[in-house]
């Protein structure tokens, strides 16, 4: 499994090869996304959830994403430190640390594919922990079946709660470090936000946890199971289509981006830059030309 994910992470060709052999729709798997600000306690929460789920007899895979340095491409992947399964059966747990490798949006492109591959390989639960995220890193909502947003007491005010982005994607909100001052205010702001969502908005729960001590973890897992029950009974085929649509979009993205890079570093790319430099062409027409060149068939004949 570890080696397989390396291949998926390393090249799009390998990913394509894997995807030819598995059902990426993976109807049985539930992908649980955990996101929130740096230091909110995501890893500790995942560790506690992992131990709880394993203890309850579930098999769980975890993908923990941390940022790569844009300068050296190096990364310190430290989430695993907080996720020791603590003597629970090793065959029931798989933990993989992933670096973002230059992807924005809080997830690596590979994380989305890795999650799909794990799902296709029969892992019933896949927990994906994003990098510490702020407001707009909302990729996770498209990848995950259930999204958990982790906050802390004293976090922002009601203006923050009403801002777009992260606050719109939570299926479950967790107020972690709930033993700290400011809990009631944070809870009130969240409740205000949720109550203003309109009558047909899905039910969103708020759970208070102290992940280091394990408080609230059982309640959180209950909420996750309740969410899953709703998802799996209400229109499972819709859920599958949504996931497939997202995977297709992601695969297309990666493919087009690779073609674009190749084109930019080819003679055509250099020529376009030279023409811009001389002032003999403008950006919009060059874009049209390059896009046309990108989808030219390999034998050189232009499509009609």
């Amino acid at each position, binding site marked *: 499994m570890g080696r397989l994910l390396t291949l998926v992470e390393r090249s799009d060709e390998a990913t394509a090869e894997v995807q030819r052999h598995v059902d990426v729709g993976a109807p049985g798997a539930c992908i649980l996304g955990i996101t929130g600000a740096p230091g909110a306690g995501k890893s500790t929460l995942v560790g506690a959830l992992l131990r709880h789920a394993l203890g309850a007899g579930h098999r769980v895979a975890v993908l923990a994403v941390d940022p790569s*340095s844009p300068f*050296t491409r190096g990364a310190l*992947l430290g989430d*695993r430190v907080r996720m020791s399964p603590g003597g629970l059966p090793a065959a029931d747990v798989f933990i993989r*640390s992933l670096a973002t*490798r230059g992807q924005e949006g809080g997830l690596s492109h590979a994380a989305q594919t890795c999650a799909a591959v794990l799902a296709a390989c029969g892992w019933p639960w896949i927990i994906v922990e994003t990098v510490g995220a702020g407001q707009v890193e909302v990729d996770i909502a498209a990848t995950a079946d259930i999204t958990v947003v982790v906050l802390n007491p004293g976090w922002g005010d009601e203006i923050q709660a009403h801002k777009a982005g992260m606050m719109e994607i939570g299926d479950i909100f967790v107020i972690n470090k709930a033993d700290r001052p400011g809990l009631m205010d944070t809870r009130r702001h969240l409740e205000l936000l949720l109550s203003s969502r309109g009558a047909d908005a899905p039910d969103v729960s708020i759970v208070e946890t102290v992940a280091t001590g394990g408080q609230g973890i059982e309640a959180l897992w209950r909420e996750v199971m309740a969410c899953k029950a709703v998802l799996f009974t209400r229109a499972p085929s819709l859920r599958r289509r949504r996931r497939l649509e997202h995977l297709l979009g992601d695969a297309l993205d990666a493919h087009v981006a690779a073609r674009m890079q190749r084109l930019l570093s080819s003679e055509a790319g250099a020529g376009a830059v030279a023409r811009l430099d001389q002032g003999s062409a403008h950006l919009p027409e060059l874009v049209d030309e390059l896009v046309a060149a990108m989808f030219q068939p390999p034998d050189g004949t232009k499509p009609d």
Partner: protein
Amino acid sequence: MNEQRRILLAKTGLDGHWRGPSVVAKALRDGGFEVIMIGMTTVDEIVQAALDEDVDLVGLSIGGHVEVAERAVLALREAGIERPVFAGGVVPPWARKRLEAQGVEVYPPGSQLPDIVAAARRLTGLSAAQ
């Protein structure tokens, strides 16, 4: 471009001496490696992490008990992981000999960070220059 190397850094000593491995981890990160840190762990957890994470190199921070490190290397090999292992920490000369007999490169206190990064590059099949 896709040849990103991954290193597992584990502490075999059951003490809280984090400074050494965290300094080494930062140097390796700045050297362009993806460094997966796991804290104080058992031999089984080191093997499991090396398998799940599919690393190219395993680094052990040894806190006095050379036997634990020796068992970790044996367990990695038994699990079919043939990746190189290097070690640092307080390793007396007699212990160093025993680890080197297992094929482990040892970097005792006083080792220079650039030398450790260079060793990581060499052991993972990269050229010496960054």
